[in-house]
């Protein structure tokens, strides 16, 4: 039987008699708190699981990669084209003493789509593997061989520009020097993934939501 028929149509007012019958007693405080906290925790659990997947993949690759990056950064002053170095080096706008700065050797390893998809995490891992290979090659390359690195630097321009253009408050950003970059989606938000080098040559990985500047530490 269709819904719209000749049934008498009630006026658009609440039926107080039915309303009284439908009344439900309020939840007790304990139940209410349990329901709310469980709901809040559920998303935390989902996010943690998602971050762990990303972090596990990134960490495995970058524990090895960090050593290579440090080697290139420390002894590779003559292996990076100076024009690219000049373009990238320096702190983000509004940067204070604790702000994010960008290494002259920063590399954009590409876009990896939705990191909730395991295959994309694998792609990210392979990309960092690839960067390791390039870094190793550059460490032993002649100046002529290093012309190719100018192309890498050029590719990273766009992402560096995006990162600078975010306009995030310095206090919202982690501290360190960006030595690697990637773009992706995380939890439905576009993110820039940064490989941060801090004092003591330690590395950490963060996803910065480009629409909200929310930072997720990945490792």
């Amino acid at each position, binding site marked *: 039987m269709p819904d719209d028929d000749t*049934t008498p149509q*009630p006026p*658009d007012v609440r039926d107080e008699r039915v309303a009284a019958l439908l009344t439900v007693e309020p939840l007790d405080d304990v139940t209410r708190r349990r*329901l709310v906290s469980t709901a*809040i925790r559920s998303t935390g659990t989902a996010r943690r699981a998602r971050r762990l997947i990303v972090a596990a993949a990134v960490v495995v690759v970058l524990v090895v990669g960090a050593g290579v990056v440090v080697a290139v950064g420390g002894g590779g002053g003559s292996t990076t084209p100076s024009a690219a170095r000049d373009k990238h080096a320096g702190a983000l706008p509004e940067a204070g003493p604790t702000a994010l700065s960008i290494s002259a050797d920063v590399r954009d390893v590409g876009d990896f789509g939705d990191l909730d998809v395991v295959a994309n995490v694998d792609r990210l891992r392979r990309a960092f593997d690839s960067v390791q290979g390039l870094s190793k090659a550059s460490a032993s390359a002649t100046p002529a061989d290093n012309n190719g690195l100018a192309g890498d630097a050029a590719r990273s321009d766009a992402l560096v520009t995006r990162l600078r253009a975010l306009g995030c408050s310095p206090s919202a950003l982690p501290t360190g020097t960006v030595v690697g970059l990637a773009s992706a989606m995380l939890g*439905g938000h576009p993110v820039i993934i940064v490989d941060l080098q801090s004092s003591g040559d330690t590395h950490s990985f963060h996803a910065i939501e480009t629409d909200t500047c*929310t930072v997720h530490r990945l490792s």
Partner: protein
Amino acid sequence: MRDDDAELARRASRGDRAALEQLLDRHADLIHALCRRIIPHRDDALDATQEAMIAVVRGIRRFDGRSAFTTWLYRVTTNAALDELRRKNRRPVPADLPDRPAIGSPLDAQVEARVDIDAALAAIPEDFRVAVVLRDLCDLDYAEIATVLDLPAGTVRSRISRGRAALAELLGNPDPTEERHTTDHA
């Protein structure tokens, strides 16, 4: 209240966990009441309440503020309740309702009425039940219900009319809508 909701929802959608928690706490009774009246079984209604809250938490980032937060909340909650209902629809619904109080029982008439309404709601079609609950419990107007259920307003009106009539019959009362129609058209 709605302005506060909008601000809290805006903050929650940007990752403010405290704002999200405050929103859930503020609307917990409403979410539960809606679930409780869509789902006749008390425990299943609590499960649906939990699922609805989780859906809110997971979906709040997609809330764009174009509609009132409560409209979005009703939609999310109604969908969660219906999902829960369908998951558990093998359960014989009225069977595990509290027994009717015996004649002369010390339980008061209000409790008996609650038992009646549980059984009566369980007995009417789900579509009618949802429409009546949104109108008479949640006090949404037809247009809002149409938005929540993504239905034409005429369909909403029809379902409410039939739902109320069915409830009145099951509860042993004259159809309240009939009386009002007579008055309205006078």
